[in-house]
């Protein structure tokens, strides 16, 4: 299946996402903030990035920009996990280069349905 990078500063959310994805047969790499995620993404090529927006050290939007600047992540799907569904937040995500978003709170089934869209 796919190799997925899950980025969230909340350990419980990370565990839930990771557990769900592993249950569906994916391989999961975890990171607690944008900086960690960027290092891990450089270390191993992943097929999909799921990232929270609000994080310490490096937030989600900066992470997207940084990833998009890497040749190997030019077209990689990056989904933002966000509770903020206001237009300008989405715009900011899009402008940074995010593929799409998944609105919190979501349950495992919604998560799997969404990643199916990008891993099709």
């Amino acid at each position, binding site marked *: 299946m796919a190799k997925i990078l899950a980025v969230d*500063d*909340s*350990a*419980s*959310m990370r*565990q*839930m996402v990771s*557990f*769900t994805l592993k*249950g*569906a047969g994916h391989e999961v790499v975890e990171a607690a903030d944008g900086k960690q995620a960027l290092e891990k993404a450089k270390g191993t090529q992943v097929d999909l990035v799921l990232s*929270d927006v*609000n*994080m*310490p050290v490096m937030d989600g939007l900066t992470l997207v920009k940084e990833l*998009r600047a890497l040749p190997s992540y*030019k*077209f*990689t*799907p*990056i989904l933002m*996990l966000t*509770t*903020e*569904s*206001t237009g300008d937040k*989405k*715009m900011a995500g*899009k402008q940074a*280069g*995010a*593929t*799409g*978003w998944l*609105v*919190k*709170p*979501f*349950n*495992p*089934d*919604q998560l*799997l349905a969404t990643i199916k*869209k*990008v891993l*099709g």
Partner: protein
Amino acid sequence: MSIDLSQFHQVFFEESYEGLDVMESALLNLQPDSVDPETINEIFRAAHSIKGGSGTFGFNDVASFTHVVETLLDEIRGGVRNITSETVDLFLRSVDCIRRMIQQHDAGEPCDIPEAQELKASFEAMLAGGSSAPAEETAEDDKSVSEESSTPARKGWKIYFKPELDVLRTGNDPLRMFRELESLGSLRVTADTSALPLISAIDPEACYLAWTLELDADVPQSDVDEVFEWVVDESDLKITPLALDGGSTEQGEPSTSGSTPTEEPSDDTTRLTEGLTAADSEQQSAENPNSQPAESATATEQTAELKPAEAKPAVAKPAAAASKTEKAKTEVSSIRVGIDKVDDLINMVGELVITQSMLGELGLDFTIESLPKLLEGIEQLSQNTRELQESVMRIRMLPISFTFSRFPRLVHDLSRTMGKKIELKLSGEQTELDKTVMEKIGDPLVHLVRNSLDHGIETPEDRIKAGKPETGTITLNAFHQSGNIVIQIIDDGAGLNKARILEKAKQNGLVSEGDMLTDDQINDLIFRPGFSTADQISDISGRGVGMDVVRRNINELNGSVEVESTEGEGSVFTIRLPLTLAILDGQLIRVGNHTYILPLISIVESIQSFQGMLHRVVGGCDLLRLRDEYVPIIQLASIFNIESDAKDMDDGLLVVVEGDNMKVAILIDDLEAQQQVVIKSLEENYKKVDGVSGATILGDGTVSLILDIAGLIKLAGVQRYEYKSVSGGDDYAA
């Protein structure tokens, strides 16, 4: 695929407690006049994580409450709203509130916190007063099909899709979208290549194509919308029912709006939270029927009776208690140990194994020539043992910051209720002490800090009058000193009023008229039972629990507490505690053929020849006249009913010890070695014995009892010692 989310709850709870602590300390550090954006961000992130997690794991009451908190924080973060000390207070109260909600979930109790509704109302009022909150999206699966246009004759949709040039650069791929559409029904795709530039001008990463798609599927439009959800804002997208192919729709315009039916652009927060709850409870079977925002009138009435000022201590109390039980619950089961401590242990065990094998080899083939080697080995063994013991002890050691961390909030709340300006400084927070000692020292510390706040620091007016800065300072300081931990509570307040203390003491009969006391002795009076100088007993510290209880609790830990004070300049309370309750520095003493142990910390001095210092009292307790005091003498032999070597008192030896706020002299036969002893509980292994605090096993294998001074004093029925004409001389050996 169904996943049991409850397995993540414990992690979520712990994470939330941490987040709440972060919020609390950041809020306390906030200076409303100069707000550091990073601090606000930190608070926002913590609230945001708690909200996200609680929504995900089905704690909807927490989610909807935290949502309003977060919305207000977001406005502050965005610079739309200024932060005031009122908002800080509101946030602090909401932190308490969220903490209690999570504790209730954690304990598996039904959630019922009336204050939450009240606070939520305050937040909503505040939000309504300012700019409106951004609309919140309800849960994804709350799909209403009512938005569908009239059912077309031929079931399906015709879609014209022209993405922006850069669509690929966001990781979106039209091909994936078409596959997804195909999963809904049969799909015919026609590409429009008219926009392709000349090959020389082509950007290989751009998308120049447009498509017309016909989807034969009996699905609501929202399903089709969802496929293009992420790109709709940057694309030219027209979705029309197949039946009306090419004709104008009843809606007049093909729908090109980017809003999915799940969005509610409403500014009405109450409506949206109801929407949230309704949607979430459909989505997850949360078992909180009473977490509905539906308000019961009684709940508000109950809380309305509390005025904010008195509500605060009242609510802070149960919270503190709850968090204590909470902590106790989680901490009993586990302790976090730094990896370096574990590495140390492993190293020491390695050394021990080497020593053991060396001694083992010596033993196999021992001749007298190898004696030096044996002694060397034994020396090494004792060093290994000592180091290992220290390392094992260190495992249970935690930095005192765990206890100190509660004070910023306490001081903040109390100084507001009392109208005093106080700055709290913490130093030596990384000083480590045993967890069990830490748990027991919390309450005495709280009491001392409250006392400094209440009786020590003056009101701003009085301070200005006295030519001091109007903001008082309380410093909590901790450091290690010769195997003990010392904790100081320093204030720059008025200091102890010796005249008033003396007057009070005379009223209470603690001191008689003619007595002359040193300054230190006067100050020490405040630790005597039933002593309070507060003119009016305030609810801060004069709760009938006095300094005597503080001293008793500290003495029970084999520690001591003293006060030094300079009138007008402040006071320093100094607590000394052993680093651990498991090991005691003991003084071995002998009476007849029994060996007992006295805690070294309690020994003041020992006196070999005291002829001429004795005062025999008929029918009472003999007294030792020690410089300017009279110290009652306790004869261990008679109390424990054992034979002593000394046929007469003069043959013995007196050890002057201090316990339960008084000195006594214990008559023994001889002093033996001083050593560290490992304390074993007599109560757990046998039963409680008066005058004995525990037992230990000595090097020769015999069991020896550890004496409890306060218990001995009770056993001996010693009268409380009265001050007798004392002239100068400071008997308080540090």
